[in-house]
């Protein structure tokens, strides 16, 4: 598991420290590697998210000066960010709002260590798909790649080449085997020798997928119609699920 970024957004420093202590203790007990970030307002948090800060799980207070936690969560969703949100608040009046913004859980203060542990148990056992990992043996060692970091995989010279933003990894695992291990709706076998991550596709150009890094991934001409339909369906599902 790569280091997970967990953020706490609360205007009260004492609350941030107390929650951070519980999270660290959980992570230590479960051997999880985490990186904690702290924010004192919704505005600061949104600014960080608009920059390059990546957050996987957010503990969000509701009553804060300036933007409320609920409004902050709405703006996070409007940005298209799918991070997991857990409300951590004294208020019991925002249960419906929390479902509206697709929060994963709702903790009412004062909460105990066991409550936080139950939330984290659920989060770690239902890791969002982009954070799932693919294990491959490459260059003499086992490497774990987040699925989100894979652009596409192709077969060349009896080996599979995994294309990522950090370059290419070569493994002897076959493409069928990798496809089974990935087992994700975001990945499409568009050709006998290519498996593509649809999250990195910008469009279809003739018989190819145009990728975010400007490469072209070929689509099997015999299955062009089916694959085109599958890609369009995937974009609809993605858009509708995030509304």
């Amino acid at each position: 598991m790569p280091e997970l970024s967990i953020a706490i957004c609360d205007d009260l420093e004492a609350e941030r420290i107390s929650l951070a202590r519980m999270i660290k203790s959980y992570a230590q007990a479960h051997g999880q590697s985490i990186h904690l970030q702290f924010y004192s307002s919704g505005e600061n948090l949104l600014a960080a998210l608009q920059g390059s800060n990546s957050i996987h799980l957010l503990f969000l207070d509701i009553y804060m000066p300036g933007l409320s936690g609920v409004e902050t969560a709405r703006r996070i969703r409007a940005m298209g960010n799918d991070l997991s949100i857990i409300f951590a608040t004294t208020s019991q009046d925002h249960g419906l709002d929390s479902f509206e913004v697709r929060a994963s859980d709702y903790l009412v203060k004062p909460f105990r260590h066991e409550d936080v542990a139950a939330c984290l148990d659920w989060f770690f056992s239902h890791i969002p798909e982009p954070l799932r990992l693919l294990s491959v043996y490459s260059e003499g060692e086992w490497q774990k790649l987040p699925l989100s970091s894979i652009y596409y995989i192709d077969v060349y010279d009896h080996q599979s080449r995994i294309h990522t933003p950090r370059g290419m990894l070569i493994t002897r695992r076959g493409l069928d085997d990798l496809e089974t291990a990935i087992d994700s709706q975001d990945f499409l076998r568009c050709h006998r020798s290519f498996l593509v991550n649809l999250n990195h596709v910008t469009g279809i150009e003739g018989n190819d997928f145009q990728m975010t890094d400007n490469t072209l991934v070929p689509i099997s001409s015999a299955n062009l119609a089916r694959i085109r339909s599958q890609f369009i369906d995937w974009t609809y599902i993605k858009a509708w699920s995030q509304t």
Partner: protein
Amino acid sequence: MQILVYLYDPVEQASLCHMLRAWAELSCVAMDIAIMQAPAPPQAQSIIFWDLDSPYPPPVLQDAGCALFLCSRDPQRAIDSYSYHPTGFLTKPFSMDKLWDAMQRCASLWFSSLKRLEILSDRLRIGIPFKNLIWAEGTRRGCLIHTSHQCLSAREPLYQLEQRLPATIFTRCQRSFVVNLSYVQEITGNSLFLNDGTEISLGRGNKSSVLEAYQQFCRLRYSQ
């Protein structure tokens, strides 16, 4: 994929089932809606609506191919309901808008049940979900089909294509145009505005039939 409803009160049950049928008809989804007479273990591939006001606790879902929506008269129970990790929470009395949002949340579960229009475009056979087809216009060589993602040409004449479209959501608004009423934002004067910004003028002979079709659509969509 099926929808299972377990609600204690028969009036609430009837109301939710009525809305679900309307949703299925307007979304052109082929799905069974079944009423659970007594609490039963969840079946795979189901969208479950469960009454939190009943004496029976909701099922614990392990299958990723299921969605669970908890329903209660008391909005405060939304927070408690998190212990069951539902997909969503609905307050009673049910509203069509909230139900619509709920179903969008589990789109990946019912997408394969969408009814489709099969067309031949550029020698490729394509199945467009009716729900995604915004409007179609007749051309000299057949018709152009506009979806939110692409524009496809087909050799089929518009009148022939129209016969294959469900009349509940599609209506002819001019000699050469058929629109999906789900995407209509406004009908004013002699024009019809779609929510992608397209303006289509209404044919003189079509105006009253379009208005009537739109009113019928709204009655179903907003469960009036």
